[in-house]
């Protein structure tokens, strides 16, 4: 049963990656909003870049989640 416990701990540790993703997403949206409030006409053009940044930041968190799932279910 010790391996089982270690798996759970490992999966939990891997989920810490979501902290970084959360910070990244918050930063991206915060900066986008502050920029968009100053220059609303440019906001529309940068919407695609916002989503790209969001996706990349979230992808990092998802990688951590995938690692957690692999630890939990693949071994």
């Amino acid at each position, binding site marked *: 049963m010790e391996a089982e416990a270690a798996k759970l701990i490992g999966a939990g540790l891997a989920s810490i990656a979501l902290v970084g993703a959360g910070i990244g997403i918050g930063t991206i949206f915060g900066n986008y909003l502050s920029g968009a409030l100053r220059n609303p006409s440019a906001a*529309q053009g940068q919407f695609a870049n916002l989503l790209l940044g969001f996706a*990349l930041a979230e992808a990092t968190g998802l990688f951590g989640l995938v690692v957690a799932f692999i630890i939990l279910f693949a071994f």
Partner: protein
Amino acid sequence: MTKSAGDKGKRPGELSSEDRTHLKRRLSGLGERLGKVRSRDRPASDENQRGRGIGYALRMSLDMVLAVVVGGAIGWFLDRWLGTAPVLLLLFGVLGVAAGFLNVARTYREMAAEAREASKGHTAKSVPFDDDED
């Protein structure tokens, strides 16, 4: 049509000039309304744009991650089949990373093209970035 109460010298069926301008204004108003109704059939693009943008955002991150997973899975199965322990897993994992970036790049290009299309003609006065924020 004649709303003449004061001018008595007018024959019936005759339009005064103010009557005519009034009529013309009503007509142009009608024309505007007709144009508006006709153009209402076109989809309002702004809200649509936002919805599609969220759709794109939901796609990109998962596409990127799952390309790696799919690549890794293919490598893992090939490894099991061919007995080449971790070689193909690593190789296809790397290819998966590349495929993930390809996915994201492709989606981004699509999205940016759409955004350019949508922001055409959007030119408002911008506010200079001079004051501090924190």
